[in-house]
């Protein structure tokens, strides 16, 4: 797709990320300037105090794209679903 087409993607939030943002999921159009996970987090922080609180320490945020764990430099182009959550604590 051309660089300037906005990416429409479902965002999912879990655990305290969900609680701070105040919702479990939303569908957004990412601006064309948002290329990777770190960009996405930076953009989300500008969307309000809940987002700012959730993402104030990006180093403790984990991300999955289309249900696979990814790093902060993973490209979000073509993603259908991006999830943000704290380090997992199952088991």
């Amino acid at each position: 797709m051309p660089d300037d087409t906005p990416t429409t993607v479902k965002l999912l939030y879990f655990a305290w990320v969900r609680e701070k943002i105040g919702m479990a999921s939303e569908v957004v159009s990412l601006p064309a300037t948002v290329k990777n996970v770190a960009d996405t987090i930076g953009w989300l922080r500008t969307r309000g105090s809940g987002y700012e609180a959730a993402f104030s320490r990006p180093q403790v945020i984990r991300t999955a794209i289309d249900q696979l764990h990814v790093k902060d430099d993973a490209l979000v182009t073509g993603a259908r679903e991006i999830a943000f959550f704290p380090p997992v604590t199952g088991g």
Partner: protein
Amino acid sequence: MAVRVQAEDFDTGCEIKALTAGNTDIGAIVTFTGTVRGQAGGASIASMVLEHYPGMTEAELASVEREALQRWPLDASLIVHRYGELLPGDNIVLVITASAHRAAAFHAAEFLMDYLKSRAPFWKKETSADGSGSWVDARDCDGGAAERWKR
């Protein structure tokens, strides 16, 4: 070879029987059962809620199980992980590995638990006796436990 994510309790004895019935090649069966502790860092826990990421949870557990099957000669394996509200003493997670070889069954079970704890998208929120809730922090040693299996 199966993975289940469920709210319902499980019975370790029944799961062993179902997994190994009729197979006389096995010889060695290891189970790990994780349960809710009544204490955390000195404070009493009244209950716990396990949140998870439906879809990704099953995919990650299946991926962890496939990795174990590639590394060890297993005749059978099972991962069951619960979600929802749990009380102290309740079952959380069950791993079963069955093999002709004792060491394979032990190491595969330990690997499954270490990997599962570092990768499966579950989050625990504890409610203490005074009603306050707090999300459990990931422990560095869980990442380290998974790290040692890297190759």
